[in-house]
Structure formats: structure tokens, C-alpha cells
């Protein structure tokens, strides 16, 4: 707390006051344009999410037979990612009626939760000042602001991703059963919402390994963790695969759609494409981190102290870079990847 008092005026005496101000500003900026129709950027994905939520509401919340309406005169059954955000929105439709602003507000609420978790996670590595700076970058990232109020599952994915890492690192320090189970639930939901959220296993397993080395594989907790976090998405993907295979008009399947994109667009070709780097660099420097945030991030890589805890961050960063090259490169038209 001392570092905080030296830096900020006297009237801001504790971290919670500053935290509240940052989050309040973050909330206000996210509420701008909250009632816009779903024709802003990423309108296709937003309309699909809204359509699935409305169909869930009309189909009595049958999450195992979700529907989309643009397959001609067909019933439109299709299984995509686990419809958590769609389901929550559909439940709220029972209370407030069908209004797409509800979907946007669900995203905003998840993003507020994610802000808390981001701060909690940052505090495990940083002092109060450092963590508040990290939160400022997270809250005011232009790309994050947009996706935090879009009718899309991105905001909920970030909430569960951050929670999965936060609760896991907490558990690694304190070893409580509730923390362990909470970490599992968050990781499982993160992967269910978006399978590429599986990137969180990089920092999680790195932290585990750095603490217990090879003994982690003999730990009583390791295998149940692995099983319980990955089994839901494996089961859901298998269900989606077999369900969609029976539907003649449906071309979506978890692995197939990724493999198809990789097959048609290739991976390695993008590594030598100027367009890939221009798109990736532009998106990261201007839309995700902003120029100051980018400079600060690069500086942070250099000035972070060499200790085992910070190695977790390097592994996390490394995993994301591999992901960019291996998968996101061929999807570089979609900035959210």
C-alpha cells in the first residue's frame, strides 16, 4: 500500500477506491451504444448468437438441439460451441422479453467479472500499482471494449479464462478443495465456450510444473484436473460431430471446420506473407494493446524479474505466439482470434 500512497493523491487512500473508479469508467464506456442493433462490426456472428438465443427461448431451452434459421426451409438444427451465453440470455428473455440489448448486457456483466479476475490475477504477480496499471490496459483496450458489449461469447470466454488461471494459481498457493474445484469449473467452461481457450493450460501446467517438477504427474490432483477440465469439451465436440453429421445441410463440426480452414488456406504460407504481419501487428499495436500498451508490454518482457513465478508468463506468451502461427494465421481475417 505504501507505493500507492506515494503516487496517488491523499483522497484516494486505498486500492479498492481506484479499482472502483477504473471499473466504473470501464462500465460507462461499455454502455455506450448498448442499444445499437446488431449490425455493427461482427454483425454476422452477433446475429447468429442472438438467433440461437431466441430459438433456445422459443424451444424451451433445449440446449442439445440448438437452431439457426439460415439453412432455407430446414429446421436449422446445428450444434456449435456450448451455448452458455445464449442460454443465459434466453433465460433472461423469460423475465424481460426478447430484446437484443439483454445479450449485450450479459456480455457487459461478464466483462465486469473479468475485470475483477484480471486484477486478482495481476496482483499475484505485481504490486498494487503494477496491477492497477495492468487493469487499466485491460479495461481500456479498444478491442476488449468492443467485444465486451458485443452479442458474442468472447466476453464470457475471457471471464472463464481469467478465472481458470486466477483460481488455479490461488489453489497452488493455498491448496483448498473449493479453490481446486472452482479452478476446474472455470477451465471447463472456458474450453466449452471456445475450444481455443485451451491456451490457458499453458500457464496452468507451467506453474504446476515449476512448483512440483515431474512429481506433478504423480499428484493426486493432476489427473482428475486434466480429466474434469477437458472431458466436457471432448464430450460436447463428439456430440456436435455426430449430431451435425446426421444433418444433411449442416457443414459445421468442431475439428472439421478448423481442419478445413487449415487445408484450404494452409499455415506455413502465411508466415511469409506481409499481409499476415501487417494485419497481426496492426491489430495488436493499435486495436488490442494501443501503442503505449504495446511498448509497455515489450518493456515488461525485458524488465520482469527472472523468477519461477514470472516464467509462467513467458510460457503463456510463448503458447499464444505458437497459437498465432499455427492456427490464427490462417484465420487472420478475424481479429478476435
Amino acid at each position, binding site marked *: 500500500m505504501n507505493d500507492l500512497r506515494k503516487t496517488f493523491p491523499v483522497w484516494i487512500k486505498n486500492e479498492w477506491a481506484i479499482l472502483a473508479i477504473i471499473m466504473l469508467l470501464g462500465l460507462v464506456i461499455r454502455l455506450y451504444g448498448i442499444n445499437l442493433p446488431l449490425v455493427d462490426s461482427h454483425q454476422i456472428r452477433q446475429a447468429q448468437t442472438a438467433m440461437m438465443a431466441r430459438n433456445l427461448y422459443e424451444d424451451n431451452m433445449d440446449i442439445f438441439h440448438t437452431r439457426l434459421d439460415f439453412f432455407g426451409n430446414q429446421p436449422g438444427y446445428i450444434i456449435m460451441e456450448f451455448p452458455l451465453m445464449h442460454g443465459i440470455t434466453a433465460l433472461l428473455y423469460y423475465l424481460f422479453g426478447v430484446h437484443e440489448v439483454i445479450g449485450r448486457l450479459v456480455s457487459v456483466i461478464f466483462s465486469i467479472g473479468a475485470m475483477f479476475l*484480471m486484477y486478482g490475477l495481476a496482483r499475484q504477480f505485481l504490486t498494487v500499482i503494477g496491477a492497477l496499471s495492468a487493469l487499466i490496459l485491460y479495461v481500456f483496450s479498444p478491442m*476488449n471494449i468492443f467485444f465486451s458489449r458485443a452479442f458474442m461469447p468472447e466476453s464470457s470466454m475471457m471471464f472463464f479464462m481469467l478465472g481458470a488461471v486466477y483460481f488455479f494459481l490461488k489453489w497452488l498457493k493455498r491448496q483448498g478443495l473449493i479453490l481446486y474445484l472452482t479452478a476446474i469449473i472455470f477451465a471447463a467452461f472456458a474450453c466449452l465456450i471456445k475450444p481455443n481457450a485451451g491456451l490457458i493450460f499453458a500457464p496452468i501446467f507451467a506453474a504446476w510444473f515449476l512448483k512440483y517438477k515431474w512429481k506433478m504427474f504423480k499428484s493426486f490432483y493432476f489427473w482428475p484436473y486434466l480429466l474434469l477440465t477437458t472431458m466436457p469439451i471432448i464430450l460436447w465436440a463428439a456430440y456436435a460431430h455426430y449430431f451435425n453429421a446426421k444433418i444433411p445441410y449442416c457443414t459445421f463440426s468442431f475439428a472439421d471446420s478448423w481442419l478445413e480452414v487449415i487445408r484450404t488456406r494452409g499455415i506455413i504460407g502465411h508466415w511469409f506473407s506481409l499481409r499476415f504481419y501487417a494485419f497481426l501487428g496492426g491489430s495488436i499495436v493499435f486495436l488490442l494493446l494501443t501503442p503505449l*500498451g504495446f511498448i509497455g508490454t515489450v518493456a515488461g518482457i525485458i524488465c520482469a524479474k527472472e523468477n519461477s513465478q514470472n516464467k509462467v508468463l513467458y510460457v503463456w506468451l510463448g503458447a499464444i505466439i505458437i497459437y498465432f502461427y499455427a492456427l490464427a494465421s490462417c484465420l487472420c481475417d478475424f481479429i478476435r482470434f
Partner: protein
Amino acid sequence: MHLLPVSAILFGFSVEWLLSKGGIIKEMLRKKLFIFLFTSFVILVLIGYAAGYLKYFKYMYSSRMPYVLEVSDIIKKYSPDSRFIIDNESGLLTSVISYYSHGKAQPFSMTGKSIEELEDLRARGATTFVTMETTYGSRVQATKADKDFWNYLNAKYRAAAITDHYLIFDLRAPLNTKE
């Protein structure tokens, strides 16, 4: 988006490092030239950020399909019950018209066999033919330019709306027939 949390933490490290050099900063703040340059830098950065945010949000929040709500309202008005829309749009944009008109929809592309394909879809229950201008392009002129298809549409079906920005045809009952 995956990069943001880890970047934010690394950003926190650089802020901590900067603040740990408090003595140097205090020393520099005693020099008037530094204060002038630093203040100018901060103002420039703030202006740059404000301009960047405005440009970004103006772009991201602007409508990609400015006529979709208008078109959906017209479709819902003349066809209040079940709707099956043939949408002459590129790719998945059909999902937006489908959502707003609360009906089934199918993408459609102009080919040499457009009339046969239209009739095939109509035989499967299509009630509406739509094409509209979006920020990704417009097939309104292309639809009109295909003389055979355009004349066929006008001769056989009632035009629910024809503007420079969108075309809507009611396919439920062909003109001059007892259907």
C-alpha cells in the same frame, strides 16, 4: 484477445520498473525543459489516443447493413406469419436478415440459372426475394442488370419495395395466376 491478459501483466511490470526509478524522474522534473517536453509529449499522446478511439469506435459501431431493419419491417408487415426469404447477399450476411425478419432464409447467388433456382426455392416454400445494399457491396444493380431475371421477377411477382438500396418481391402468389 488471448494476448490481452498476459500483456496487461507485463505492462504492469514496466510501470513498476518506471516507478522504481522515482529518483531519476524527480531529478528530471527539476529541469524546465524536461517539464515542457514531457507535458507536450503527454498532450500529444492524449490527443492521439482520443483521435484513435474516436476513429476506431466510429468504424466498429457503424452499421454494416444500414437497410436491414427497414427491409425486415417491410417483410414482416406484408408477410406476418411464417417467412422464408431468398436473400441475394454474399455469404453469411443472410443470418442478419434472417434474425431481424424472424424467418427462415437462404443465401442466393445470381447464376445463369437464376430463374430455375428461384422457382425451385419457391416450390420449397420461399415467400420473399430480397437483395439490399450493404457496406460490403450491393447486388441491387446486378439484379436489375440481369434482364431476363429482372423482367421475370417483375412480370411474375408483386414488388413489395423497389428502391435504389433494396429490392423486395413477394413470392407467395404470382401475378395473373389463380395460385
